[in-house]
């Protein structure tokens, strides 16, 4: 176990790295904003974090697993390439920016620009599951992968997602549970019913969510889900004319 305290992130991350050369799991306690924890962590390695990890947690995550008992700040899972992040709390802006594969489970809220520019490639399909709700610009530029947003424990008047949702989205899908603010959706987004494959995919994610955070699967699934997809994969096809 590593006590982070108020020490510099370089030191903490070096300690984690060297600990993980001989072990597969590392617990870090009393984390106070130290950045880049779990940066480019490889498959087979797990880091448990207690406290408030700093920005860019799990950036370039490379198959490793990160569990956070606390809230996260900005740019969690930045440009991640695979692996899993589980946050027992909420997260800041630009979560999962450009993520290409792997899964992120957030118990509560995600702030602005969650899942921005998520993409997919061959069998790489990133997943972002949000327990409560999301801020504005959810899924901006989204080019692939799946966002699931459950709307659990919403207070009266709280919306499932903020304005400009899926702005510029040209790939991937967002599964939304229950009622959602249609007025906050960007142009060129279609609302569809889930097909069989979607259902199957969704259930797998929800099951994991429930397992991680102790929610009841049946209750979660009791409300209807809808799927948001881009109306075209080429939203800007006619934007330009050769001069």
């Amino acid at each position: 176990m590593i006590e982070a305290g108020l020490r510099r992130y370089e030191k903490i991350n070096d300690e984690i790295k060297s600990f993980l050369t001989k072990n597969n799991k590392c617990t870090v306690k009393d984390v106070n904003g130290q950045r880049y924890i779990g940066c480019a962590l490889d498959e087979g390695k797990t880091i448990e974090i207690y406290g408030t990890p700093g920005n860019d947690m799990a950036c370039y995550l490379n198959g490793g697993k990160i569990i956070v008992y606390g809230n996260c700040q900005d740019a969690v899972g930045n440009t991640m390439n695979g692996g899993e992040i589980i946050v027992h709390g909420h997260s800041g802006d630009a979560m999962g920016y450009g993520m290409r594969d792997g899964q992120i489970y957030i118990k509560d809220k995600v702030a602005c620009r969650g899942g921005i520019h998520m993409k997919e490639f061959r069998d790489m399909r990133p997943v972002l599951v949000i327990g409560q709700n999301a801020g504005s610009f959810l899924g901006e530029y989204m080019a692939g992968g799946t966002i699931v947003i459950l709307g659990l424990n919403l207070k009266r008047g709280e919306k499932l997602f903020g304005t400009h949702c899926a702005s510029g989205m040209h790939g991937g899908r967002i599964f939304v549970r229950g009622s959602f603010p249609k007025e906050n959706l960007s142009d060129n987004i279609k609302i569809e019913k889930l097909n069989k494959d979607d259902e199957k995919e969704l259930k797998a994610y929800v099951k994991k969510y429930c397992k991680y955070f102790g929610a009841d699967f049946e209750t979660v699934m009791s409300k209807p889900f809808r799927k948001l997809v881009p109306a075209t994969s080429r939203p800007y096809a006619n934007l330009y004319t050769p001069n």
Partner: protein
Amino acid sequence: MIGYIPRKFTVIRDNDLCTNCGGCVSQCANECHSINAEKNRVLTNSNNCVACHRCVDMCPVSALRIEKYICDYRNNANWTPEYQQEIVRQANTGSTLLSAMGNPKPYPIYWDKILLNASQVTNPSIDPLREPMEIRTILGRKPDKIEIEKKGKSLTKMPPQIILETPIMFSAMSFGSISLNAQKALAMAAKELGTIFNTGEGGLHPDLESFGKYAAVQVASGRFGVHKGYLNNCRFIEIKIGQGAKPGIGGHLPGEKVNVEVSNARMIPEGSDAISPAPHHDIYSIEDLRQLIWSLKQATDATKPVAVKIAAVHNIAAIASGCARAGADIVVIDGFRGGTGAAPTRIRDNVGIPIELALAAADQRLRDEGIRSTISLVASGSFRCSSDIVKAIALGADACYVASAPLIAMGCHMCHTCNTGKCNWGIATQKPELTKRLNPNMAQKRIENLVNAWNHEIKEIMGGMGINAIDSLRGNRLMLRGIGLTNKELEILGIIHAGE
């Protein structure tokens, strides 16, 4: 027809010479040439001609020639034919105008208004053919001072350094914007020349992975192809904040250029648009840049220098200084004449400032701040010849990025239509029938020839100045004199006028 736009060129065919072999028909991806089976003759439709000269070059009997097509408008210095045609084009389509290559407008080119010095009497010129003449260039962060045990034994642990055998590097051109053969040629030439090529924001194609030691890998806002392996297989990492040809806006590789190979390198599905957002969405402020720089250092165990490339814009000196203070080991400034595979015309032609002024201002500011010697400064944005590079180094650059010049070396004729994807020279295209026209080995040789020739010219100019190491040319503005420049221009360039 209201939407008429006169064509730009006419292909002239000398029918006395033409053997109707049909070679030109197969050469032109713009479909200017066709065979009339009935008459058994090759016909020409000049409407699509872009003056790429492919057919002219390939015609075995030299029967073809390109001429400007002149369809006169009433004289009007304000409403030039160009502006009228652009309006027609936009009325036809409702679209943003898209152009390629660098800013072609007649803004001042300061390289042409700066003269170089040579030694006479008071110190000797040096003959580069027979005396040592060093152009080796080292990029990367440097500590303020050396710590030593004794003379001959250093105790300083140097941050990762990039040792180049020439101050000329190949700037970012992604696989996608150019063909794999073109990028391969640059990679192979970089290896031979002891310099680097830059992947642009297109990832590194598996075929080029063995060239990692000669690659700068770019991390741009779209994060295409960025992963741990990519970041660790390079000489240095370049964060692309901006590009001189289109400061402030992102990139957009249309789906039709994303074939299976491009998709592999960028790690996105085939046929999907590759959109690079205007900003990095994890950088909304200078302290966020520091965050990205150090995240890249974390991901590479600090073994790779991190460069930050910014477009030359109005407040460039302060921005460059901010980048250096945020931890950039190399600051790259791209001037507004820098090339591009595609940029909105209005942005390309109106946004940003010339590299000469930006470089001079940034170099001076970094010196005023006392940090110039701890980082490297790379200039980019249209170097047409070796003396441009000498002038840039004397203004303060450590090294220069070139892109258009090696493209021309491998066949580009500057037809300004990279964005159409129909490059007849196999450079700016992904069509297999076109890309196979570019022989990477031959192109490599031509690029090497060019850089070797420039290297020699640089040495010759340095020798004339009595300088035998490029270190002593760097920032040596006394070697420069302005010609026909205003006091303000001279002041910004930090040089005095010819005759002074």
